[in-house]
């Protein structure tokens, strides 16, 4: 009885957390999420002929639950609250919070999907898997190329260097066949956005510069130089092979640079000492859409100017306090 009451209390707290996350994300993010949700529901209720077609979303949902279950950090706490049946709690939580996605299956011709999903959820909760942080000092392949005090790039490269290098080489290889491979550089630039999703402490922020404007200008200079050094061989590769396509490259390059600066400025526009940024995901999404939809092309250039002044204003409090 006691455990059941605790379960209800905890589920209520979880709902409250979810609600607060939505409020923090803002109406714009909620609106986008709602559209995505509606699209998912339409996809579920669409009559599917093949079994694979009906089960693809179930696979996606299961993978999501698996990832959440692997990375969640409250398992020790749950084991203390529910020493005997914390796995049961996990299952109930996943089943309840998946309801908006499982209920539409009642109106589809793949109702068995609910049973499959719940079964997979049950199995996931039975596996006590937790992702361990990689404590190995992974060597950064291009470390000599990154300046020693550029901590964003050192940390970011350690985390994503394999993907970045793979895409870089892929982009270069594509250049032998088609000039459109240049778009790979845009994708790599988006990976760089993750380099700027953690805010340093105020002590580190104010170490060298006296004003927020000086800080932002120095930061942009240093990081743009780093970015330019990184993309230079890639640019040469395309410009040498397709010199007549500069009309295609130059606007794209302008957008890539603008995107890169938007990622940096977004960090300082929302800077709160020693925190992880959440707004980055929304901004990255907007810039990404902007890169592929022609009429949204200037979105990052507009954001650049807005974020520049906003970041200076936001940092003023930390520099002139």
């Amino acid at each position: 009885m006691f455990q059941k009451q605790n379960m209800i209390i905890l589920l209520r707290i979880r709902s409250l957390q979810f609600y607060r996350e939505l409020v923090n994300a803002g109406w714009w993010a909620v609106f986008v999420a709602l559209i995505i949700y509606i699209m998912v529901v339409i996809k579920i209720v669409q009559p599917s002929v093949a079994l694979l077609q009906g089960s693809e979303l179930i696979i996606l949902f299961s993978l999501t639950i698996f990832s959440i279950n692997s990375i969640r950090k409250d398992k020790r706490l749950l084991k203390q609250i529910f020493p005997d049946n914390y796995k049961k709690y996990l299952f109930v939580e996943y089943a309840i919070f998946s309801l908006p996605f499982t209920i539409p299956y009642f109106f589809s011709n793949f109702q068995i999907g609910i049973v499959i999903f719940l079964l997979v959820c049950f199995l996931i909760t039975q596996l006590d898997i937790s992702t361990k942080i990689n404590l190995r000092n992974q060597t950064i392949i291009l470390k000599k190329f990154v300046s020693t005090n550029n901590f964003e790039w050192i940390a970011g490269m350690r985390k994503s260097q394999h993907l970045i290098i793979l895409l870089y080489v892929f982009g270069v290889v594509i250049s032998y066949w088609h000039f459109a491979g240049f778009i790979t550089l845009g994708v790599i630039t988006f990976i760089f956005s993750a380099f700027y999703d953690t805010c340093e402490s105020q002590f580190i922020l104010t170490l060298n510069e006296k004003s927020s404007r000086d800080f932002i200008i120095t930061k942009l200079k240093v990081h743009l130089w780093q970015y330019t050094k990184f993309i230079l061989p890639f640019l040469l590769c395309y410009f040498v092979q397709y010199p007549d396509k500069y009309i295609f490259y130059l606007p794209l390059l302008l957008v890539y640079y603008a995107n890169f600066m938007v990622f940096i400025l977004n960090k300082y526009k929302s800077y709160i000492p020693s925190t992880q940024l959440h707004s980055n995901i929304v901004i990255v999404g907007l810039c990404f859409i902007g890169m592929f939809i022609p009429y949204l092309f200037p979105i990052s250039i507009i954001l650049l100017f807005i974020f520049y002044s906003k970041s200076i204003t936001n940092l003023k409090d930390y520099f002139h306090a």
Partner: protein
Amino acid sequence: MLKLENLSVSYGTNQVLKSLDLTINSGEIHGLIGLNGSGKTTLLNCLYGFVRYQQGTITFNEQQLERKDVAFLETNNFFYSNLTGREFLSIFPNPNEKFDLETWKNLFDLPIDEMIEGYSTGMKKKLALLAVLKLDRPIIILDEPFNGLDLESNYLVEKIILMLKNEGKTILITSHILRILHQICDEIHWLNHKKISKTYLPVMFNQIDEEVLKGAFSETELANLL
């Protein structure tokens, strides 16, 4: 000489420090004690410039105190993820050519080429302290420097603080471990009712326990609770 005069700080309508005065001579270690929420960290944040003060002045050697004069060891140190200890330290400028990272690394028994995520609380504290030492600034603020340290490291940090004093550094330190403050401080200040309500010289250190903790809680009430 570090001098705080008539310092007042408020967060909105909540006044935390009111007309506070404090003087610390160069080459001295001063302790700051107070109950939770008494404003110790606010005072330290003011000194580094993290918090804006509404009234008063802070001067160092009769000049307005600047950030470049102060090194600050915070209670909860922040470490960027996916960095090794050595990479973290490279963020901090090194004005002192004497600073030998390899010797410090051995002295602190710190695996600086390993990822910070794998460090214990004490190791993280030592790493943050190394950053402060590397900065080599004339004023050093240490907010709870002994938290999370083992016995040996506690002793080592005590010795380092005393050596910094001999080098002429001005040190302000907060700690809930009164025994250590007794051993290293030239003066201990009790922050209470938004200001320094009393300053204890070494001959008076024994009075601190009794005076500060007096009336903090009722033993009878506590006994009834348990």
